[in-house]
Every structure is written in structure tokens, then in C-alpha cells.
């Protein structure tokens, strides 16, 4: 555990990607099996314990520390694991500190009733860094700035392999990955034949602005609607079917209705959407299905999900990624002529004559589930990552309103010393009503200015939240940009914003000139 704690600790302080890679690689090289495999599982988000939850940790801490002091400390530190790790009272003469594999194997085998006692004894035995690592591990969110992809890249480097080689074998592997390390260290064959339906790293696009289009030739590009769902990769392979998020996270279990739709032996790239009578519904509907481990029958009935496909990466025995977009598109269209069905269909191309014409089409999308256009070079091969100059996303212009800062909350993590989360409102009669919350869109310099404004104009303090002066004469006006608006029973104003962010600070504008709720209500219609 000590070595793993030191790894997490150094990763947390290492700002550079290359530095992080070196640290992980060195750890994997120097640490024996099975500890290193469990560490890799933790870094790639492949560890979860049924009975070890944040609530349990919190409960243990509160049984050892005055709850008021715990609450104040947690508000200040802004991170449960770190708060408990630091506040845990040292116990002289505790047991020896456990090894990483010992912790994992014991937790996996232990009954629910035994877990609090086990965890408590480990917390006593570890130092603050060890406690922090243990809690991070148990609650499943390491937050040391390492993605699964980065961890796999470091693992690949161990054996001089490309990270994509790891992705290909990954679905067939199980922690603690002893066969993987044996292969990478040249002691065994590549783990093969067991990897069915692997994830293939997705190709990403760059945002493009209207003014940049002039430099591109419209004839080089295909255009598609940019659907407002989530990007997925659906893979079927000799009867094995998997659905991946764009980062390679396996989300199959939450979408049995989508799995049923997949044709045999293909890998499709497309948008996951909720469908109603053959038409995609808004993101708001899809959201009901996201971030769930499983799904209920009423959910499947009320929010049926499907895929609007726009690329094909693999078919039968053929890797189609080296083909250009035109050829892949032809393969996709041919497949879906026969395989298309309700909730699995083809994302249509939007004809491109010139940019002005396309601009007009972008402003008049055929569906509320469209958030702009995608431009893809006809001759682009399917390459992993954000390849320059091949694919572009041309988003619809956001909606803008002027709203008044009402409450500010201290941020978490790196921003825990700043008031960085803002609740803002618009006028309803003579009163401001909150319409949303945003915590990005501003520069570091602007953050300092807002933070200063909040501190100098505080009306009330509620723990980490401050009520900020917001009269018709005094207050800070934000120009807020957002993607869409939905009715909401949860908000006093009756509306909820999608993807709100601070577009501009309007120091020049008195709060009385901010927008009114009627402006937002008009957008709902």
C-alpha cells in the first residue's frame, strides 16, 4: 500500500503528461505481481467494491471525530478522502500497514458486516498518505489526473508496444493482469483469441468557427448533423456485444435495448439517443438513462435508446479504419440498407454546395436534437485521437442571456480557495430568481476578479456558500451562454439550462438591466 500511496501522491503533484507516464511506468516496472496489476486496475477504473462506499468512510470518521469539526474540515478541504485521511486520529501501536493486494482481496472476500471493522483497522495502521490512497481506492475515484488511456499508454511502454495494442487485448483481460505483464516483459505469448469485441480508440474533431471556413474547400467535405446525444462505439464480434463510451468505458449493462439492435460482426461509431417514433429526442430525455449501472423496465419503456450511426470501423474480418471516409460511408450505407430498424438508423448526409448555404441549413436544423454540423474530409482515414485538419465540429451558436450573480460557492480540487461556482438569476417582477449554475467559461484572471467581488460583497455566509449582493443597483452581471432550455420542476424559475457557462463579465451593466424570466420562457416555446 505504501508504494501505491507514493505513486498516487506523486501523480497528484505531477502536472505533466510525460512525467505521469514515467511515474506509472516506473511503478509497474518495480512493483511485483499482483500488486501492480491491482494498481493498473485502479488507475483504469476497473475496481469497485460493493460494500465499501463513501458513506461508510464518512461514518467511520464521524464516529472518531466530532461531527461539527468534521463538517467544517470537509467544507474547507473539499475532498472527502483527503479530509478523512488528514483528520483521522493517530493510534499508537496499531497493526502493520497492509499491502495493496491484501486490501483488495480482503475487501472482495469480506462480508458487508465485516467491512467497517477492517477499514477502521487499516486507517489506524496507515499514515495520512496511505489513508488517502486507501479511501481513493475504495470509493473508486482516484482523481490524480490519469485517464484509463494514459495508464494503458504507460503499460504499453513497459513492453515497447503501442497503446492501441493494449486496447485490442484489454476486453479479454482480468485484473490483476498477470498474463498482460508477462507478455509485455517477453515472458509469455500475447494474450490472444480471448479478446472479443474490443474498443477501438475514437477519432475526434476540432471545433471550427464561421470565419475559419473560408480556408477550407467545401468540396473536400461531407457534412452530417451533429446529434445532441453521446458518442458511442457499438461492437459485435462472434456473438459478443459491447457498447463503449468514447473513452472506452463499457456501458453495455445499462443499455440492453441497444445491444439487441446490433447486427453481427461490426463495429459502429454513432450517437446514442432516445428515440420517439423514429425521431431522436433531446438530450434531456437521454440524460434519464445516463450514469446508471443498470436499467429498469419503466425506463426502457419511457426512454427507449438507440443509435444513429455515422461510421463503420470493422466488418466481418476487415478492419475498415484505413479506408477513407467515402469508402467507409458506402459500407455503412450498404449495411444499414438491410440492417436498419427502429432505433438503429443512418445519420443522413447534409448536401454541401457552399459554406453560406450550409450556414443557412445549420441555422434551421430539422430536429431539436441537432446541436450543429460535423464536417468530415471525404479522404480521411479513421485515426485515433484529435487529428488536425480532418474532422470539424461546427456548433450552433449558443443562446445568451444576461443574468445576475446571486450565490457563489467555493470550488473543489484545485479551485478550493476560490469562489468559483456561481448561481445566477434573472428578474421575475421585482425579484431575482435563480435560473442556473456555472463554474467555467472565465479565465484565471477573471476568476480572481470575481472571487474578489464575492468576498467584498458578501451578504450572508452558509458554510462554503456566500450570498452575494444582488440589488437592482449593485451586483455582478454575467453574460451566460447555454445550449438549450428545458422545463424543470426542481428550479424555482421553472426552467433548467443545458451546458451553461460564463461567456463574458458585464462589469459595465447594472443588475436592473439584466434579462427577465419572460425572455427565457419565450425560448421554451
Amino acid at each position, binding site marked *: 500500500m505504501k508504494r501505491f500511496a507514493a505513486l498516487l501522491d506523486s501523480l497528484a503533484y505531477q502536472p505533466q503528461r510525460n512525467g505521469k507516464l514515467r511515474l506509472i511506468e516506473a511503478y509497474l516496472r518495480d512493483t511485483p505481481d499482483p500488486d501492480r496489476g491491482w494498481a493498473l486496475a485502479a488507475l483504469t477504473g476497473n475496481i469497485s467494491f460493493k460494500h465499501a462506499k463513501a458513506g461508510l468512510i464518512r461514518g467511520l470518521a464521524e464516529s472518531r471525530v466530532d461531527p*461539527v469539526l468534521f463538517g*467544517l*474540515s470537509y467544507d*474547507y478541504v473539499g*475532498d472527502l478522502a483527503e479530509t478523512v485521511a*488528514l483528520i483521522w486520529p493517530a493510534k499508537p501501536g496499531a497493526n502493520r500497514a497492509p499491502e495493496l493486494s491484501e486490501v483488495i482481496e480482503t475487501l472482495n472476500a469480506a462480508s458487508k458486516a465485516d467491512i467497517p471493522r477492517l477499514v477502521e483497522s487499516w486507517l489506524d495502521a496507515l499514515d495520512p498518505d496511505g489513508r488517502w490512497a486507501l479511501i481513493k481506492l475504495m470509493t473508486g475515484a482516484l482523481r490524480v489526473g490519469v485517464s484509463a488511456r494514459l495508464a494503458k499508454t504507460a503499460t504499453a511502454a513497459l513492453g515497447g508496444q503501442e497503446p492501441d495494442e493494449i486496447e485490442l487485448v484489454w476486453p479479454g483481460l482480468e485484473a490483476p493482469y498477470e498474463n498482460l505483464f508477462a507478455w509485455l516483459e517477453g515472458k509469455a505469448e500475447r494474450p490472444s483469441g480471448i479478446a472479443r469485441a474490443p474498443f477501438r480508440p475514437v477519432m475526434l474533431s476540432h471545433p471550427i468557427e464561421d470565419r475559419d471556413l473560408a480556408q477550407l474547400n467545401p468540396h473536400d467535405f461531407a457534412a452530417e448533423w451533429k446529434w445532441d446525444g453521446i458518442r458511442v462505439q457499438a461492437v459485435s464480434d462472434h456473438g459478443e456485444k459491447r457498447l463503449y463510451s468514447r473513452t472506452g468505458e463499457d456501458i453495455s449493462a445499462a443499455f440492453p435495448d441497444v445491444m439487441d439492435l446490433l447486427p453481427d460482426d461490426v463495429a459502429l461509431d454513432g450517437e446514442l439517443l432516445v428515440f420517439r417514433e423514429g425521431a431522436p429526442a433531446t438530450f434531456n430525455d437521454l440524460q434519464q438513462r445516463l450514469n446508471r449501472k443498470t436499467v429498469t423496465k419503466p425506463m426502457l419503456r419511457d426512454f427507449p435508446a438507440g443509435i444513429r450511426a455515422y461510421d463503420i470501423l470493422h466488418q466481418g474480418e476487415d478492419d475498415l479504419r484505413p479506408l477513407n471516409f467515402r469508402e467507409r460511408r458506402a459500407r455503412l450505407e450498404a449495411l444499414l440498407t438491410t440492417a436498419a430498424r427502429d432505433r438503429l438508423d443512418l445519420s443522413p448526409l447534409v448536401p454541401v454546395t457552399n459554406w453560406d448555404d450550409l450556414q443557412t441549413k445549420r441555422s434551421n436544423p430539422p430536429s431539436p436534437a441537432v446541436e450543429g454540423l460535423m464536417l468530415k474530409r471525404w479522404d480521411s482515414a479513421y485515426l485515433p485521437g484529435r487529428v488536425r485538419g480532418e474532422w470539424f465540429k461546427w456548433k450552433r451558436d449558443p443562446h445568451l442571456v444576461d443574468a445576475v450573480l446571486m450565490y457563489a460557492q467555493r470550488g473543489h480540487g484545485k479551485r478550493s*480557495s476560490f469562489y468559483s461556482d456561481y448561481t445566477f438569476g434573472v428578474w421575475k417582477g421585482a425579484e431575482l430568481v435563480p435560473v442556473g449554475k456555472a463554474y467555467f467559461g472565465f479565465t484565471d484572471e477573471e476568476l480572481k476578479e470575481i472571487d474578489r467581488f464575492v468576498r467584498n460583497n458578501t451578504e450572508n455566509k452558509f458554510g462554503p456558500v456566500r450570498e452575494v449582493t444582488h440589488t437592482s443597483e449593485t451586483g455582478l452581471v454575467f453574460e451566460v451562454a447555454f445550449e438549450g432550455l428545458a422545463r424543470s420542476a426542481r428550479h424555482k424559475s421553472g426552467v433548467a439550462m443545458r451546458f451553461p457557462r460564463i461567456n463574458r463579465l458585464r462589469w459595465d451593466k447594472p443588475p436592473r438591466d439584466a434579462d427577465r424570466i419572460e425572455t427565457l420562457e419565450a425560448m421554451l416555446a
Partner: protein
Amino acid sequence: MRAEQILRTTPAGLYCPRGDFYVDPVRPVARAVITHGHADHARAGHGAVLATPETLAIMASRYGAEFTSNRQAAAYGARNTINGIDVTLVPAGHVLGSAQAVIEVSGKRVVVSGDYKRRQDPTCAPFEVVPCDIFISEATFGLPVFRHPPAEEEIAKLLRSLKTFPDRCHLVGAYSLGKAQRVIAHLREAGYDAPIYLHGAMQKLCDLYEALGVRLGDLRPAMDMMKTPLTREVFKGAIVLAPPSALNDVWSRRLGDVVTCFASGWMRVRARARQRLVELPLIISDHADWDELTETVQEVKPGALWVTHGAEEALVHWSNSIGIPAMALNLVGYDEEGAGETPPAAEPAA
């Protein structure tokens, strides 16, 4: 006599109406008692200043000899009288010359701790416990998450890193008054006798410490070695001390490949270290941690505890829970809310 008649809060700071003087006022006043030389406690422009000889020397070094028209040097333990009120300065263990102000009015004793710590510090006299009716404590680290490890361990961490990265300059951020000299003194205690390079802003105070009898060893201006690529070679594997504001400044670019270190109690919290882009956090503080604060209150056993600048709420809660009535004094001007919360540039010594 009611407590407020001895000391009360005013916009200028803590005020003693019977003696007509302020303690650590944040605005210019006619008569001030200054606990120590940090800028948020010791400001220029007061009519008369009573402080330890060291604090007076520090203020003169920072603000010029004209920082006040009337200096009154008060040695530790010597009784002074201001308009008939007894004021005694007692060591606070915070930085060189730092003192608690012991104020006695009609048989009641109030102790204004100023900033203090209870750890060993080779650069200043240790804190002395003075039993009293009212103890006014700081609470910079007034939360039980703040438990500073022994300074020797943190110094060992720095020396270990120097061994691991012998080609990288170790740039240590430390406040110019107190922390810098303490880090140097601890390094010397640990047997590190190589030259230590200083940012220009630290030179004067290090010279003053030496003049006041604190041995700091071989110190050299970093600037002299920054001039040519050849001389910059000396920074490889060397320790350079700079004020925190210079850590991520263009100044540091000429030091080559740098391990950014920061010596501060705030380094206990990861988010703070990351915010400063620190690679090697050194948890070394001149303020009492939670255990030191609570132990001090229990030793001083005051009739009442008043808590100033820092995380007042937690210490007040704890004190009330052990039967010592406590309240928060909302003094303005000492970096309200415990210092580190304001954006980094304004962070006070910690």
C-alpha cells in the same frame, strides 16, 4: 471589569480604551503595540510603537528608519506602562522577535498571542505559557486536518529529493521573514553546509537575522550566478530560496530545470500545493497546528478564549465543548478567513 473595557475590536484593530493604544492596528494610529514584524501585523505610520528590539529592527529594515516617530523597545519579560496600563511582551515562538502582548488592567490579565507556534525553531525564542483571564488566539490552522509533521522530516524530504535529482535546481518558496531563515537554519542543523542561493528580496532580512545573532551559514545572491549560461551551472543540484510570488515568475526561468518546492503549512492540503504548481510540498509552518492550538488553550487555561484570524469557527466550537467559553473576534485586515483562501498573491506568511 468587563472584558470590553480592557480590549475591544474597532475598524483599526484591537483597542485598549484605558491605555489608549492598539495591538497590531491595520491603520495608522497614535500608539501601537506590535507583536511581530509580518506586514499584516506591523504597518508603518503609527505615532508611537512599542515592540521587541528585534521587531523594531525588522520594521526599520522593511519600512525605513522613519516608520514611526517614537520607538519604544520592550525586552521579553520587562514590564512597560502605557498610560498607566501594564504591558509585557513574552515570546510567541513565531518568528525572530515575535511576542505575545500581556495586558493587565485592574487585576485582569489579557494575553494577545499574535501569531505563534510551539515547535522547535532555531531562529527564535520559544513560546511561553502565560495563564490569563482572556486568551486571544490566532487560528490560521484552526481545523483538525492541519497537523504539521516534524520539520526535520520535511527537511529530510528535501535533501532526499536533492539526491534523487542531483541535476535539478530545488527552488524553495518561503516567506521572506521567518520562514526563509528557519528553513536555512534547519538545513544547517541537518548538516547541509553547501552555499544556499537567495532571491534578492530575501537578502536584507537574512543579513538582519545574522546581525541579530542567528547563524545562517554560506548564503549567496542567486542573481550573481544568473548572468551567464556558464555560471548558471551552479544551480544544478543547488537550493535556491525565493519568496512564494517568485516561484512561477519569469525570474525562475534562468534556474534551468527546477523542482518547485514550497515551505508552508498550507501544503498539507493537496489542492493548495497543486494550485501553486508545486512538485515538492514541504509542510513547514510558523503557525500552530490544530494540536498546538488546542494544547496551548488547555495549558493557558483562560477564563475565556477569543479567536482571531483563521478558521475561528472550529476552535470556538471545540473550546466551548471543553467548557472554556469562546467567541470569534471578527477583526478585519488580517486576511480574513484564514489567509490561504485569498488568491495566492495575497497569501500571508504561514
